[in-house]
């Protein structure tokens, strides 16, 4: 015979129904015995006060035992019936009843595979998110660098534009051409100077020899 552990009931009540009833049984039984002992004690005391009493304490004890035996038999039978009713009607949770604290079990049934898939998906999303954050970092760094480079380039361009404006202001329309011409002329002059220098050197040498 397998005993129903009544685990679900225990979850609800905070105690095992059978244990509760056992406690009650023992307590009731104790009270029965105790009260019987009191009965016996009262009787013995009374008999003590009677001189020439024909009734011995052991006789009284036999009476007590007789009555107690009778009471215990009925007590056990009645208690068994009470226990049955309590376990079936009071201290039980019907099979179709789900405790509110377990509602998720009904709302979100989930197999091992489904759960694993869900966990994997969450993990993947986390990785993807982290990748996007890293990308954001890189993009923002480049944006900052671009700002600096742009500023430098724009400054350079402004310099050139500045020069153009000066030329225009001073009526040097083709300043660039003049500048280029001058640069060329300067180079030519340098070459001529060099030739002249060399020629004069040769002449001096020639003079010295003659």
């Amino acid at each position: 015979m397998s005993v129903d552990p009544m685990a679900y009931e225990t979850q609800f009540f905070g105690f095992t129904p059978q244990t509760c009833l056992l406690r009650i049984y023992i307590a009731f039984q104790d009270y029965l015995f105790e009260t019987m002992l009191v009965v016996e004690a009262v009787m013995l005391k009374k008999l003590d006060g009677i001189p020439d009493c024909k009734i011995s304490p052991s006789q009284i004890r036999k009476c007590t035992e007789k009555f107690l035996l009778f009471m215990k038999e009925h007590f056990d039978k009645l208690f068994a019936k009470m226990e049955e009713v309590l376990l079936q009607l009071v201290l039980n949770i019907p099979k179709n009843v789900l405790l509110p604290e377990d509602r998720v079990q009904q709302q979100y049934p989930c197999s091992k595979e489904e759960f694993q898939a869900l966990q994997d998906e969450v993990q993947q999303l986390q990785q993807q998110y982290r990748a996007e954050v890293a990308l954001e970092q890189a993009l923002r760094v480049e944006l900052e660098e671009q700002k600096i480079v742009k500023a430098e380039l724009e400054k350079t361009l402004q310099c050139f534009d500045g020069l153009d404006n000066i030329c225009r202001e001073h009526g040097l329309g083709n300043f660039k051409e003049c500048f280029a011409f001058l640069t060329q002329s300067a180079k030519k002059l340098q070459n001529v100077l060099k030739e002249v220098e060399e020629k004069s050197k040769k002449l001096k040498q020639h003079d010295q020899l003659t």
Partner: protein
Amino acid sequence: ASGDGGAALAAGPGRAQVFTTVVDTFLEKLVAAGSYQRFVSCYRCFYKLQPQLTKSIYDQFISQLQASIKEEIQEVKNEGNLEGLFSSLDKIVEEAKDQEEPAWRPSGIPEEDIRSTMVPYLLKHRSHLRRALREKEEENRKVAESVLMGRDRIAELQQLIQARQQAWQ
């Protein structure tokens, strides 16, 4: 007699009521079994000597036994908050009355049972991540656009500068 005048939600008597009735019945029948006649028949010798005292002792015995038993029941009720639990359970049972299928019961394996408890949290987490990822991707798309535009602009500037340089040669 029910001590609570509150609404009786259950179709029949509530668990508290049944509990009280069952205990009272037990006591009644026990007292009936341990009748005065039975008592006297066991303690005949004493009864012959002291009939009135016997009656008095019996009465006290019965009343003491009843009082002790009732007190014990009350203690059990108080310690376990049984009245409250009984009425809760009655309500829960009433709400489930249209459920025909047997309900879920713990499997005894914690890893199995905890799954369903965690599913709502995972679902919430997943939807939060999905939204955050979507927003971040959208943000990054815009920033990437700016970066590309920036690169184009820088190339443009470099070309312009090169052109000026050449003009000054």
